[in-house]
């Protein structure tokens, strides 16, 4: 009886780490452009597509909002990825923060006092997002249950909780549209004129980057999270409980994503529209791409976020140019992520085959 097994072997000499991001951007955009051209039988003109991407890259003021949100989400996910904990639950954590912030703004009674309201939205939003991450973190940390399916499934649970809340108790009373009332204007983040961003969002982005940089570089927790990702045995031997590190990394990750959730509500959406699974800006998923493309280095997260947010805007340009729908950008993002994942594996590993008989 024969059985074949594929064995992945670590390369003695890994390829340089910039190979994967560079390859995936250039090749990804090329492949996706060609792919679109073929699939649409020549209707999406590659020139128009590339020009749209170029134009989007050259207009930072228009991508400020997505850039900042993606930077925050990317940094948040990075914290868990560093520990080899794969938080795919950004969407759920994002929405749990929104649930909390919406409640504060609409029903807590402090909605009209701008500063208290904003601070409370952030604090409670972050806590609830962290709580949602904790539910996946505990079984992963202490029972070793794979976090990927758990966090992924929890995204859908979060969507449905949002759908339930908005469809029933929180529904706006006037026209009975499937959405909440708009949150009071006092709780809105302040738009920077001529851009898509808000002052608070930019501040929060800076604070998150600086804070996580400090955590990862100047605390034992951050160091332990780093070591967790390369050799958890060492933690045990040194006397640090790896389970606690896993839980902390996932919870911190969720909390940071929660900051993006609150900022999205207060700076952009101002209300929740359902069904959440269709109306989501998908930053929890796109953020995964940003985190990976940054090679898990904090300083490169904004770079990756910039390029990805330009791609999102390019989608809109393409739609305006009549060369396709805005969602063609999903093809780009998917292709880049796919090529990235494949090339990253081959920079570190080569694959061999064993046949047993």
């Amino acid at each position: 009886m024969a059985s074949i097994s594929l064995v992945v072997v670590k390369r003695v000499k890994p390829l340089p780490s910039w190979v994967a991001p560079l390859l995936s951007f250039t090749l990804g955009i090329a492949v996706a452009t060609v792919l679109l051209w073929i699939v649409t039988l020549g209707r999406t003109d590659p020139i128009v597509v590339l020009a749209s991407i170029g134009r989007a890259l050259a207009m930072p003021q228009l991508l400020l909002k997505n850039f900042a949100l993606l930077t925050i989400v990317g940094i948040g996910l990075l914290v868990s990825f560093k520990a080899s904990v794969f938080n795919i639950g950004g969407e759920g954590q994002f929405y749990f923060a929104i649930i909390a912030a919406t409640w504060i703004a609409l029903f807590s009674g402090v909605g009209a006092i701008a500063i208290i309201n904003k601070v409370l939205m952030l604090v409670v939003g972050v806590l609830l997002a962290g709580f949602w991450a904790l539910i996946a973190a505990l079984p992963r940390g202490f029972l070793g249950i794979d976090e990927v399916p758990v966090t992924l499934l929890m995204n859908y649970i979060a969507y449905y909780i949002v759908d339930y809340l908005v469809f029933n108790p929180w529904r706006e009373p006037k026209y009975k549209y499937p959405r909440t009332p708009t949150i009071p204007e006092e709780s809105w983040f302040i738009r920077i004129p001529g851009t898509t961003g808000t002052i608070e969002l930019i501040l929060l982005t800076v604070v998150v980057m600086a804070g996580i940089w400090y955590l990862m570089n100047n605390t034992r927790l951050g160091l332990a999270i780093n070591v967790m990702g390369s050799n958890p045995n060492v933690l045990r031997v040194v006397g640090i409980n790896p389970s606690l590190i896993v839980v902390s990394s996932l919870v911190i990750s969720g909390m940071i994503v929660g900051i993006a959730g609150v900022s999205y509500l207060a700076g952009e959406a101002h209300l929740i529209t359902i069904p959440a699974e269709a109306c989501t800006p998908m930053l929890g998923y796109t953020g995964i791409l940003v985190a990976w493309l940054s090679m898990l280095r904090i300083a490169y997260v904004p770079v990756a976020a910039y390029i990805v947010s330009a791609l999102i805007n390019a989608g809109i340009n393409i739609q305006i140019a009549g060369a396709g729908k805005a969602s063609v950008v999903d093809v780009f993002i998917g292709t880049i992520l796919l090529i990235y994942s494949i090339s990253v594996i081959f920079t570190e590993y080569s694959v061999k085959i064993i046949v047993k008989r």
Partner: protein
Amino acid sequence: MLVEHIVVKEVTKRFPGTLALDKVSFTVYRGEIHALLGENGAGKSTLVKILYGIYTPDEGEVYINGKKLVITSPRDAVAHGIVLVSQTPTLINDLTIVENIILSLRHYNLFTRTRRVYSEVYSVLESLGLGIDPNTEVYKLTYTQKQMIEIARALLLKAKVLLLDEATSYLPLTEKKKLFDFLKKYVKKGNSVILITHKLPEALEISDRITVLRKGKVVGTVEKKKADITVIRRMMFGDTEFAPEAIKQRESIGNGVTLFIENLWVKGELGEYMVRNVTLSVRKGEILGIAGITGSGQIELFEAIMGLRKVERGIIKIDGVDTTNKDTGFIRSLGVGYIPDNPLEHGLSIDHTLAENIALCPKYSSFIIDWHAIRQDADRLVREYGIVTPSINTPIKLLSGGNLMKMLISRELEYATKLLVAYNPTRGLDEYTANKVRRNIKEKKAKEGLSVIFASEDLDEIFELSDTIAVMNSGRIVGVFDKYRATRDRVEELMVM
């Protein structure tokens, strides 16, 4: 007649911040065992890694059988009959021995029957005197056993030039004798061996010629017949003074019991008892050495003491505190230092820097890391132990094997205030540093009352370092001797009984 097999000409290799090899030239003749000696960080591993295609030289040439070759990958090297058994085992833990070997052997292909390989592997292991089932998963093996498997793999690869990088240092005596006999027969067939070791007597015993490297340069090549150990030492270390052996050991032993173990039972990786009813105690300021062949239960015993392996039955107390099945963090916080069996897998995070590896330890740092203080600690350890590194912010995987070990030992020895638990505490260290480490351990015990429990596969070390010697065999303590009453013969007899 001497035929040149390998000629290395003026090879230079630089790494950022280090000149690892500086115009190195040397020749290996067909049919010789050539020992390559030198202190930690001298450039020995770099040289053999160049021959094996892991590194390519910046300058200089390599000739094999008179032909100039550019070896750019291990695959290339193997095709030319050159195989390296590296200082750190490279086997894949989740696979069995047979599977690992199939992976690396080119003359086996997709259609090779595992059963055929099994019997080939079995017979090579047998010829090396290794009684291990080839279907054992690699993670169940000890560090030393893994190295033996790598030697077997190299032989199965039909190597014509065998590069052994400290792979023989810890083989148990009988296996080592078998291997050396094998190597002598092996070179008679026109093959060659380059042997790296820190055990000078071993090099003198088996090699035909000896080349000494120092700080990346060749000091010289001497014929075994003309060599003697003091000359070689001088070539290796220059005029560096060896530490005088002046500490009065016995007097420092106090009355209090630091480590108390009673009727201890611990299971091994396979679920069978590896520690059987062990009762031991180590007094304050006492060094207890555990002699025993590899796999007699020493590792499991130490892991149980450290809270890393479950105690099935029995009691462990450290300084009167019951630590049976307690958390490792708690046990270490009592002042317990630990040098594990496989330092690279369990002791250090090799992707991180020397400073980070120090900061990871609770004693050196609180929640917020004071990098200034850590740097001072790191600099002190580097100076004290002569760790060769471009800087304390270099990822430690770039350090030489011995320097990595120095890093771990210095951190743990300084960390330990009450008890040091150490497995092969001087593995991979050159003579000078090994000496120094042993002296530091003794000094710390004499001055600060540190207690030590250690195991070593090297009997010389057991006799050299211990106050009390316990012999472990198949999980049981079969004899406990005062150092001055123990004889080598009696201890060896009990080890293999």
